[in-house]
């Protein structure tokens, strides 16, 4: 997929996110918008995927979303990739929907391999899947995404220690470094110091993508991350993003972490992101 086409897809994904959370007046638009470029690039330019959905994912790359609250962007990207009909985005957070508030396998939504939402569990799951790939002599990779605030959960550090100690080098874990969480700036809620230094100290290979909302930077950064796999170390990508990216009034604040826009705010936000591939 060309850069221009990826851009158009990103704009449409942003519209999907905004319309989904607006409709049910709940959900998490901020982090979703911040990761739109990353997930669009990952699913359409970086990962090697098979057609259709198979839970075991033999012979294809796998992705695990650990910070499950950014389900709107995950669902939009999955639907636009063809895992399920885009019309189903209309059912987000409604009764009897496969699109639960946080991603789940329980209702059988294609594309989702683990429930997430209770934070800090995704890296362990990704590690297990990566080790299953090694046992199966499957050369494909496992990708995971985590929030920076999420790293406050202790289980992550068990997983980070294990991944390096056991040389799980078919795993690329990306941290969405947007510096914000529900209660404010991460450095105010719980100062974490240098995330990079911590991953380094644990023995990971670290790669930084400073322009985490720039498709070109993401694609080249993630291709470099893939080149670094298979060398005895797990790979960590520190992706610096802007929460609420693409909607001016949602940027540079943590206010839109878990709040839906009003009718008027939605109109404003959609005007900044004109329809490209057709609304659902």
């Amino acid at each position, binding site marked *: 997929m060309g850069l221009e086409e990826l851009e158009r897809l990103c704009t449409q994904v942003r519209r999907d996110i905004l319309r989904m959370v607006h409709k049910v007046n709940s959900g998490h638009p901020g982090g979703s918008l911040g990761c739109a470029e990353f997930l669009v690039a990952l699913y359409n330019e970086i990962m090697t995927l098979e057609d259709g959905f198979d839970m075991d994912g033999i012979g294809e790359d796998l992705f695990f979303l650990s910070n499950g609250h950014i389900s709107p962007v995950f669902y939009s990207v999955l639907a636009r990739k063809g895992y399920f009909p885009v019309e189903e985005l209309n059912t987000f957070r409604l009764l009897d929907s496969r699109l639960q508030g946080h991603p789940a396998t329980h209702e059988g939504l294609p594309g989702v391999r*683990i429930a997430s939402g209770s934070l800090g*569990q995704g890296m*362990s799951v990704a590690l*297990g899947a990566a080790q299953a790939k090694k*046992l199966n002599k499957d050369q494909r990779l496992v990708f995971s995404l985590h929030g920076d605030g999420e790293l406050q959960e202790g*289980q992550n550090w068990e997983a980070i*220690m*294990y991944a390096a100690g056991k040389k799980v080098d078919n795993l690329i874990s990306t941290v969405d470094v947007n510096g914000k969480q529900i209660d404010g700036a991460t450095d105010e809620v719980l100062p974490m110091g240098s995330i990079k230094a911590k991953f380094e100290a644990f023995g990971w290979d670290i790669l930084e993508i400073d322009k985490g909302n720039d498709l070109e930077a993401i694609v080249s950064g993630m291709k470099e991350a893939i080149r670094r796999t298979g060398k005895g170390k797990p790979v960590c990508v520190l992706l610096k993003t802007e929460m609420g990216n693409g909607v001016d009034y949602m940027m540079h604040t943590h206010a839109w972490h878990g709040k839906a826009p009003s009718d008027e705010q939605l109109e404003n936000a959609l005007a900044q992101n004109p329809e490209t591939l057709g609304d659902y």
Partner: protein
Amino acid sequence: MKKYTYTEKKDTRSGFGDGLTALGRANPNVVALCADLVGSLKMQNFIDENPERFFQIGIAEANMIGIAAGLTIGGKIPFTGTFANFSTGRVYDQIRQSIAYSGKNVKICASHAGVTLGEDGATHQILEDIGMMKMLPGMVVINPCDYNQTKAATLAIADYDGPVYLRFGRPVVPIFTPANQKFEIGKAVMLNEGTDVTIIATGHLVWEAIQAGEELEKQGISAEIINVHTIKPLDEEAILKSVAKTRCVVSCEEHNYLGGLGESIARVLAKNNPTPMEFVATNDTFGESGTPEKLMEKYGLSSTAVVDAVKRVLDKK
């Protein structure tokens, strides 16, 4: 009273270890994980024979549960091993989200359950694990009674597709289950047919129930004794059939009476056939250090306690 004798005593955890070894040979998809308790869980033989299929996680149970969930994606059948306390309470949310809610085919194998863990004391003696695990939708909960039954259960759960909690213990106990007895998940085992009272026991309490049955026979009381190794799904049919005959029940378990087997039985009875009932279980308390035998006695889990409970329930009949 049917005679139950034994020639050997063994720990139920060895039944798990030997079952796991057999699975290692029979099923290439079986993998094992341990959080630094290989010796206690008797996993060394499996490791020696299948080093590539064993994952030493270190002292990090939350990570172990997550890794086990991930290993199922790719077709593996993970067996996690640590003490019951660290298999459940410590990692409840990890089990809830990554295994139970996600419907992953993980076998959570838990040793040193209950007070018979002994001298290490209450920090390690969990008496709430059955309750926690049975409340999780879709979780199967199994508590076998001796070495043979634990080995058979270990083999059986590999063939079942879905999350399972397998609970066993540390002390050596008599082996009275036939080695060739097939283990059917959710199917109670009738140990003795009787007419006056139904004694339903699980885990280490099954042997105590048998001994109580012998003592009761001397006193002219005919006890029906049922081994309920699967607490969930519960064999409701076997329980109701027996109660229709005896019209009173004593439940026996090495667990808090809150949340245990007894409460599951009481629910079935209250709904279908309200019946006088007594509970042999710990009385909403933590345990303490001591030998397994002394602890069973002090916490009201011995065969004497079962006999006393039968007397009480007969008075209510």
